[in-house]
């Protein structure tokens, strides 16, 4: 018997370049579960993709509705962008009692959403990362920065919390300027930011979107040469494209101390999925959590997922890394307890969102070097 898992991501639209790897990672987890042969008696998990478009709430709602009512999925891995996630949650998931685990909707506002216990996310709310980034800057003794963020709920929320934390600690923000993704030209933003000045430029955007454009433009004009970056900027492609110029720049990214992330990378690379892209780890974890929660509940049902996600995600129990899903299933089968660590050191707190440990990295010799974990 098949159990459908909806994978709702923006396959077309502004983040269409991120989503294939995200979906690939999630499907990787499901495949691992299926291949282990230890999942619920004769149940196979079947991923069903749907397009959230990232921006069109109505289309996303319709797609989700189709997943739930037509394809009969029991849980949803998604959605990606916070806006459509909110729409799918309140219009489809809650009314139908279908749980959602979003890998990437990071808007702080979602913590307050009316979710009836059905909404989880494997990425931390941006409220926390802002503080982390401010702390890093303080450590480095940087007291004056210019900030640019991608103009969406993620970027804006992130910038708000960063600004609050940084000025609290006595830092000065010379200018906060948003940038729109997908609009290749950022001369105006760079002009304003350069004129405002600051020791470093804090970039809270996406590595394959405006964020990259901004950095490139800043480097080309010589406006800034050191950048402090948020999670959206973490990607190997960025280093590959901009090379040595990024030397000495640094940033934060939700990450786990330990082998979880590396395990995932190896796994993903073997399967031919790009691991080093935004939110791939979170996607893997989201899908894994859905499956594990079903196992724990003993049935492939929505209720089982909703009831058990927190349980399998958090201590106590045996820590589980990517690649060890089979083992986890066995433990659960035998009535044992697990603590899913996954690729991002999953720890779901509060209303069911990642607590968020962050890696503070610096770019040295053309690679990300860990400085510390926060």
């Amino acid at each position: 018997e098949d159990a459908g898992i909806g994978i709702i991501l923006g396959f077309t639209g502004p983040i269409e370049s991120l989503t294939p790897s995200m979906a690939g990672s999630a499907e990787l987890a499901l495949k691992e579960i299926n291949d282990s042969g230890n999942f619920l008696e004769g149940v196979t998990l079947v991923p069903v993709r749907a397009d959230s478009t990232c921006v069109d709430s109505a289309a996303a709602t319709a797609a989700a509705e189709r997943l739930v009512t037509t394809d009969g999925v029991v849980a949803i891995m998604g959605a990606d962008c916070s806006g459509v996630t909110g729409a799918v949650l309140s219009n489809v998931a809650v009314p139908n009692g279908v749980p959602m685990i979003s890998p990437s909707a990071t808007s702080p506002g979602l913590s307050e959403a009316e979710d009836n216990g059905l909404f989880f996310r494997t990425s931390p709310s941006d409220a926390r990362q802002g503080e982390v980034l401010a702390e890093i800057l303080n450590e480095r003794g940087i007291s004056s920065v210019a900030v640019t963020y991608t103009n969406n709920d993620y970027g804006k929320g992130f910038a708000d919390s960063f600004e609050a934390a940084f000025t609290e600690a006595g830092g000065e923000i010379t200018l906060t300027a948003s940038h729109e993704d997908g609009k290749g030209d950022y001369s105006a933003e760079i002009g304003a930011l350069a004129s405002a000045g600051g020791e470093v430029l804090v970039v809270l955007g996406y590595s394959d979107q405006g964020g990259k454009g901004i950095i490139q433009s800043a480097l080309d004009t010589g406006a800034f040469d050191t950048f402090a970056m948020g999670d959206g900027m973490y990607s190997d492609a960025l280093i590959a494209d901009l090379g040595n110029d990024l030397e000495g720049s640094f940033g934060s990214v939700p990450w786990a101390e330990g082998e979880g992330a590396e395990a995932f990378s190896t796994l993903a690379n073997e399967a031919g999925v790009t691991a080093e892209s935004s939110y791939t780890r979170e996607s893997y974890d989201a899908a894994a959590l859905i499956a594990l929660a079903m196992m724990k509940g003993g049935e492939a049902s929505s209720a089982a997922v909703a009831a058990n996600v927190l349980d399998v995600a958090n201590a106590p129990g045996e820590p589980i890394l990517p690649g060890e899903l089979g083992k986890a299933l066995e433990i659960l089968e035998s009535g044992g307890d697990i603590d899913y660590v996954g690729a991002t050191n999953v720890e779901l707190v509060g209303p069911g969102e990642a607590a968020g440990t962050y890696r503070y990295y610096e770019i040295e010799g053309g690679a990300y070097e860990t400085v510390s974990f926060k």
Partner: protein
Amino acid sequence: MDLLNGLVVLANFVLIPATAYGSQLALGALGVTLIYSILRFSNFAHGDTMAFGTMVTILATWGLQSAGIGFGPLPTALLALPVGIFGAALLLLATDRLVYRFYRAQRVKPVILVIVSTGVMFIYNGLTRFIIGPDDQNFADGERFVMSARDFKALTGLDEGLALKTTQAITVVTAIVVMVALFWFLNRTRTGKSMRAYSDNEDLALLSGINPERVVRVTWILVAALATIAGTLYGLDKSFKAFTYFQLLLPIFASAIVGGIGSPIGAIAGGFIIAYSEVIFTYAWKRVVGYMVPEGMEPDGLLQLLGTDYKFAVSFVILVIVLLIRPTGLFQGKSI
């Protein structure tokens, strides 16, 4: 010295980027304007035509690169341009044959062609993504800078740097050359004039012995060339991503229209107006003014008229104001 520094800052952050961006918009706008003036509709598929032409160019560039062929300090993509243009021309001619020709024969209202072009846009959109995918593609090679900020500082001993990218230089030069060539072609050559005649009065063109199908074919080929050149230069300067090209459509249309749609000079002027208004109104003048005024009078504030959040809005406000003063654009465009 300080005055010089101030000027350099201005050039580096306002003049050069805005000029380059303006030329990029202008090149796109030329294509839009050409279709509008001759085939009489606003072609929404133009952004995706640019993306398609660029994609073919990129594939050809990769081919050349893997064969070890380069173009010295210039990007190899320039060598691959003809292939891209050829590909785009094939696509456009095929589209015309399958789609637009029918509506031309029916003499439908322009707005229907606009909507049809939206359909075509969806198809190109998918086509490009099928072939090269939705991701960023970097295909620039050769010398990146004519002059980098660091070199400039070392060379002049000024505090401020001035950077000029190869692609920026190429873009500006190309835009001007293409504009002049197009203007000459339309106003001086027989084919060009026959194209204008066709656009003015189709029936009468027929009565003068002008072959409409030929006019249409030439137009599409020119459009393919313009779109591919514009798209490739843009991709070289930034990077190639199908989605960005779609997003470019809006400022491109704005440029074409504010300059007076149907007019090549207008397209260029429009491109610059849009680009400059985006940069100037959201620029923080603090640093420039700081250099310009006597010691001790440097401004505290940023001297920024509007946040960059509104850069797009600003350019549209300018556009509306220009149109209110000159209702058919700066250079007397047409209206249907």
